[in-house]
């Protein structure tokens, strides 16, 4: 993982976040790397939270129903 891999889905952001937490919690990274990981983790958290905040329980109905020239259901056999 590197900063170049900007997550495009929520799952990717979450997976990267989990990986960073695991590396930080392992406690064997240097200070410089730890600060870098921490900042990256904060950015990923922000991405996840922003994504969640976007969901607004909106509903839209498609209006493309009922093409003209549909075969008629009813009618005479001949």
């Amino acid at each position, binding site marked *: 993982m590197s900063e170049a891999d900007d997550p495009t*889905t*929520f*799952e990717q952001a*979450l997976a990267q*976040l*989990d990986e*960073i*937490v695991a*590396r*930080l*919690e*392992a*406690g064997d*990274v*240097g*200070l*410089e790397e*730890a*600060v870098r*990981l*921490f900042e990256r*983790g*904060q950015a990923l*958290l922000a991405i*996840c*939270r922003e*994504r*969640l905040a*976007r*969901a*607004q*329980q*909106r*509903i*839209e*109905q*498609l209006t*493309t*129903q009922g*093409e003209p020239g*549909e*075969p008629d*259901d009813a009618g005479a*056999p*001949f």
Partner: protein
Amino acid sequence: MKTVGARQVWAVQEITAALARRLAGIPSVWVEAEIQNLRQRGGQVYFTLRDSHQIDASMRAALFERLAPRPADGGLVYAYGRVEFWAERAQLSLRIERMEPAGEGAMLAQIEAIKATLAAEGLLSDARKRALPLVPRRIGLITSAAGAARHDVLNNIWARFPADVVLADVPVQGVTAARAIVRALDALNAIPEVEVIIIARGGGPLEDLMAFNDERLCRAVAASRVPVVSAVGHEKDVTVCDLVADRRVSTPTGAAQAVVPDRAALDARLAEAARGLARGLGRTREANAVAIAQRTLGLIAGLRAAEHRSASQVAATGSRLVPAVQRIAGASAHAVPVVHDRLVRATGARHEAAAQRVAASAGLLEALSPSRTVARGYAIVRDPASGRPVVSAAALRGGTELELEMRDGRAQVTVKETHT
């Protein structure tokens, strides 16, 4: 025809001949009916086709005997034939050329045939099934706007997560259903933000669910850009749409669980990740705390050793450094007493007050959780040119510019002298 007085009078034969002309040219049709009163006479089989009405029918015995399975009295059939008119008795009947069993048996056979076709193309393979997104930007929902399924699925989704939904209103049974659902799939696939599609319909008799065994519909599901969840019928009603979809569910609750996460659980997971970040950084700082403290103290000692600085200047700069020491040491409460002792020695009695603030902060810091400590901020000694944290005093020289980054701002400091 003859004229009697003012009337035109016709022979029966002329009437039946006229009827025969009228009835000629009627095309062959498929009829669905129950077969009754089967009997054979000579080379012909005679029977009645009926629903609430009835019509006599016949078929060549040689053809009838080849039918497999051969229809019996009371059986439901699809019969293909044309209207036959026997002029001598003005009797109408259907002359049947082909006949197949109808009803549930026929539908099941049709389902099996479609299933076999799609399976042979690999479209029912588990390997094709795609993972569903954890948090779809928008959800496409194909169902009848008037049906109970719409309400049930939406309520279950929103009970878990406030997802945005695009609804495609379609008939979910009858001859127009399959085509409308195919169009809805196309329309939803054309919306980039739609990342998963649910096709939903309640349970029902087999014939009501036949749209979901339609080959075109099933192929459209297989070809969908985004994963499709089939929420059609009850557990026992398995349609081909269920088999070709990326996920099959049999309840509105199942549909909701498939397409959205539980918001509360997800929030808890993110909060735990945030705590994990703080813990992880704290752990690293634990290991580095002494090194940080030494570096900071080195700066203070440097200030004090600079004889040309006035005492008040040293005191002022030392005071500015104290908050940095507090925060740096904050991750490592047990390091604070060490810092305290050395700070007292380094700064002397004049800075006793500042040193006491550091000591007092030790108790406070212990009361803080790691996450709160981080929320309060942390101090990092950086090289202002590169922005990188400084991890060794060895690289520092008198006059080196450093930057202390704290919760609420930055302090620029200059190294007077180093001791390594």
